[in-house]
């Protein structure tokens, strides 16, 4: 039904997809797996018309297709269910189902027809929901189901589900999987993307593994070895090997010989709802502690709570033995904690201001003269010093930070905390969206900060990065710390991924 031939796509500094060829037939569910950044999202964006490939051909239902926009793809029968819900909470289920779909007759809503159709659609999914319930009153799982019903209302030929169970409870997730299978039985095609391998095993006829923008493995489960459900059992270890694949190479700067000192940061029993449960760990002077796990495992929440940006329900944090209040980032910064946020553009920088103003923002008290006046000369000197040291490339001194490349933006954030002289550095996905050259420089700076006696927490979804950079790695799964790897340089990435995926629960430092 859908046929991709040698699709390529590159962004500045990254080849997101390299000549990927893939096909999905009618009645088939294709499971798509891969690490973060392997190219899954890009692939979906291309298939759904949100992005155009640089090279390659797309065929849909036997014809060449070049979708100009998501609306175009939708009109051809391709429906995407995103991770983020797209329902209007104030409207009823029925109203949401037919929103924007043009089901009216001369502008007048065909209410009776809608009601019948809504019941039919929800019945199809075996959902016991009154179509006149407001969406805001539904559980997340029910809302996800409505989302799917909404996609089904279009009678799609191809359904794409991108991490659809991220917000669902296990029971709701199981129901969703049954729905997808049912749909395939009726002759539609589906692409199912998930980090959760057990879901892939339950739903996919065929599994494709992406790594670094390439299709590295395709497993067909139909055939002689098939079990009762018509599908051969999936070898998860094989999948994980394929996803990780690479050996750790010397892409990381060497460890500096400063040595690790006494305990600097103590985190005890940090908890926040379902996202973070009883997280405890220590970071010592000069240590880089890696925090591995899948997206949504609660790692960012942990960092934000230490930084005072989110309030924990329970737990405490001590810095050099003194208990911290955790009330606001302002306080955290004053005590010497700093954060390189995951969402650099949204949380790290004021894009409308210059690189220099962004650098100075948390440091203004250091450049102040009586009366709250900023000493611009001192500010300028400090900025040019770090600009030189970090090699931040600007066209003009007053250049807006929005116009910088990702690497230079991250360096501005690092520069501000270096100037601040922080003692604890929380790095949340520090190299996301940064090209290879700048990436190495940022690794060097993380190393250097550790060697100066700072305690560094490194959150990364890239296994290689977190293993290659850290002195010790903790693995989180669904809000809990599930494992500790004492010697990450020689750890087996697949083992880490197994813990992160919740397949293996034991605390077992695996060595390759």
């Amino acid at each position: 039904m859908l046929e991709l031939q040698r699709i390529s796509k590159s962004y500045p500094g990254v080849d997101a997809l390299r000549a990927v060829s893939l096909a999905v037939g009618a009645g088939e569910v294709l499971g798509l797996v891969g690490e973060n950044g392997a190219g899954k999202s890009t692939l979906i964006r291309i298939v759904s018309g949100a992005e155009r490939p640089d090279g390659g051909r797309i065929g849909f239902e036997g014809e060449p297709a070049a979708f100009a926009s998501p609306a175009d793809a939708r009109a051809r029968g391709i429906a995407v269910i995103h991770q983020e819900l797209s329902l209007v909470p104030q409207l009823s289920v029925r109203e949401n189902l037919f929103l924007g779909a043009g089901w009216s007759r001369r502008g007048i809503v065909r209410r009776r027809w809608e009601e019948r159709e809504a019941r039919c659609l929800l019945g199809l999914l075996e959902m016991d929901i009154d179509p006149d319930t407001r969406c805001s009153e539904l559980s997340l799982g029910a809302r996800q189901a409505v989302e799917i019903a909404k996609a089904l209302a279009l009678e799609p030929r191809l359904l794409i589900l991108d991490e659809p169970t991220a917000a669902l409870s296990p029971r709701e997730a199981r129901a969703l999987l049954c729905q997808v299978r049912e749909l395939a039985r009726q002759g539609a095609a589906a692409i199912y993307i998930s980090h959760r391998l057990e879901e892939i095993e339950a739903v996919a006829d065929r599994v494709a593994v992406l790594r670094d923008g390439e299709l590295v493995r395709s497993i067909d489960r139909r055939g002689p070895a098939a079990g009762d459900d018509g599908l051969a059992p999936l070898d998860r270890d094989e999948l994980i090997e394929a996803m990780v694949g690479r050996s750790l190479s010397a892409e990381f700067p060497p460890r500096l010989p400063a040595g690790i000192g006494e305990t600097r940061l103590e985190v005890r029993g940090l908890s926040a709802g379902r996202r973070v449960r009883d997280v405890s760990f220590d970071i010592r002077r000069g240590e880089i502690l890696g925090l591995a796990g899948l997206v949504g495992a609660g790692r960012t929440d942990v960092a934000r709570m230490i930084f005072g940006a989110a309030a924990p329900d329970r737990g405490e944090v001590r810095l050099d033995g003194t208990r911290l209040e955790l009330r606001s980032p302002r306080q955290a910064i004053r005590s010497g904690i700093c954060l390189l946020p995951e969402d650099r553009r949204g949380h790290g920088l004021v894009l409308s201001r210059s690189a220099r103003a962004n650098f100075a923002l948390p440091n203004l008290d250091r450049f102040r003269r009586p009366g709250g006046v900023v000493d611009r000369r001192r500010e300028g000197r400090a900025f040019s010093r770090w600009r030189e040291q970090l090699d931040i490339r600007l066209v003009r001194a007053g250049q807006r930070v929005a116009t910088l490349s990702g690497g230079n933006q991250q360096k501005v954030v690092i520069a501000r905390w270096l100037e601040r002289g922080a003692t604890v550095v929380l790095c949340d996905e520090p190299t996301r969206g940064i090209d290879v050259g700048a990436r190495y420089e940022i690794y060097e700076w993380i190393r250097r900060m550790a060697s100066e006696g700072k305690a560094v927490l490194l959150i990364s979804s890239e296994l290689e990065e977190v293993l290659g950079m850290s002195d010790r790695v903790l693995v989180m799964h669904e809000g809990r710390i599930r494992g500790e790897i004492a010697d990450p340089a020689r750890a087996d990435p697949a083992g880490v991924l197994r813990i992160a995926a919740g397949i293996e629960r034991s605390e077992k430092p695996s060595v390759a």
Partner: protein
Amino acid sequence: MPEEKGGRAGRWRRRLLDVLGRNLSVVVLVLLCLISSAATWREQNPITSRSGAAVARQVLEACQAPCSVLIVARDTEADRVFAAAIEQGLDAGAARIAGRVFGQPRDVRLELERIVGAGASVDAIATHRIASEWGPVRTAGTPVFAPGSYHWPTFLTARNLLNVVNQNADIAIIALGMTLVILTAGIDLSVGSLLALAGVIAAVTAQEWFGGAAASPAGLLAAMLLGVAAAALGGLLSGTMVTAFRVPPFVATLGLMMLARGLALILAVGHQRRLVGGGAEGTPEAVRVEAAVFAWLGNGAVLGVPNPIVLMLVLFVAAHLLMTRTMFGRYVYAVGGNVEAARLSGVPVTAVLLAVYCLCGAFAGLAGIVDASRFEGGRPNAGELYELQVIAAVVVGGASLAGGRGRIAGTLIGAMIIAVIQNGLNIAGVASYEQKVVFGALILAAVLLDRLQPKIASRRARMTRASTSTPVQ
């Protein structure tokens, strides 16, 4: 870097366009001034002390001494200044003043009759262009001296320009505070009402607490400060609503707008009741301040520049320094540009927002004091619909309603643009209904520009990024 097309000339043209694009509001202001000047190109008959002195010189040159001169002028302040200058000039020479007329053509005839009846004669009449056309002057049979006329745009006279700025000084002062609020992506609809409240409170306290007609300057100052403080408190209230209770600024300040207006009216009516002794009607009137010094702020002048303009300029300079040189200014821009990033950078977001709304209220209060002083009393109905004019001034001045972008200097220019348009249309004789249409169109154009600017900026950014991205190793 894209290939430069058109060589050096093209580059210069691009650079010029770039500079003009960055300072679009200045360009618009200059254009508007030019248009207003062209539209008001008139014959000028200045009635000033300088033209009076010139007439006196003419008379002395033409007449044989001793000659007696009749001075004719209308009964206006400018005419009296003019006449006084003539008299001073004549006294310096050998001429004698036969008489002075301040009034109508009829008064000239009566005066001439009186002089002739007394047996004296008139050798010359010194007057201005307008009175020289009067019947009794023309038919008096004596030489008439008047200053020469010339062509010059009425708009572009010092008097008119000072007048334009003076009349809009209160709008400009409020626009300062509004700029801060809009920079944080907020809005303040209560400024017009706070203006009225501050004026009324200053007037009522001046009358009732600080001695009325006998109030000392210190007492009046205290009354004015009370008015400003009340307005600042109002701003603090909306700031609290916005920060602590997360009420959208539009709604919070809409509430305060009605509340403050109501309070101003209640206070004014209450004062009236106390004056009359009980049973006064509930129609609000201005609260008159009897102490004469009270009017100085609104009507006095320093070195010929009206006080409101002086105050406005001082406040603009102060606000400009505040926003460009201090931590507070940096914080305001950061909060407006990206609240979350500001918070995570340790900016005390709540305190900044509170201060911004409080300052905006205080500026509105100051404008209210200027207004009250100008009208020698607090008017509870003052400042109606000011909020919209002020917002228009800020937006026209280049601030983005989405926050984070805008400058104090831009706001000054925006306020002046609005003032110039109003004045230009007035002088050009455009009726007030048409003026509204022009205003509306102007504001829409300004907001449209605001919408288009990010697109242009992002195009420029893409070009810059392409040329600076770090090379891949």
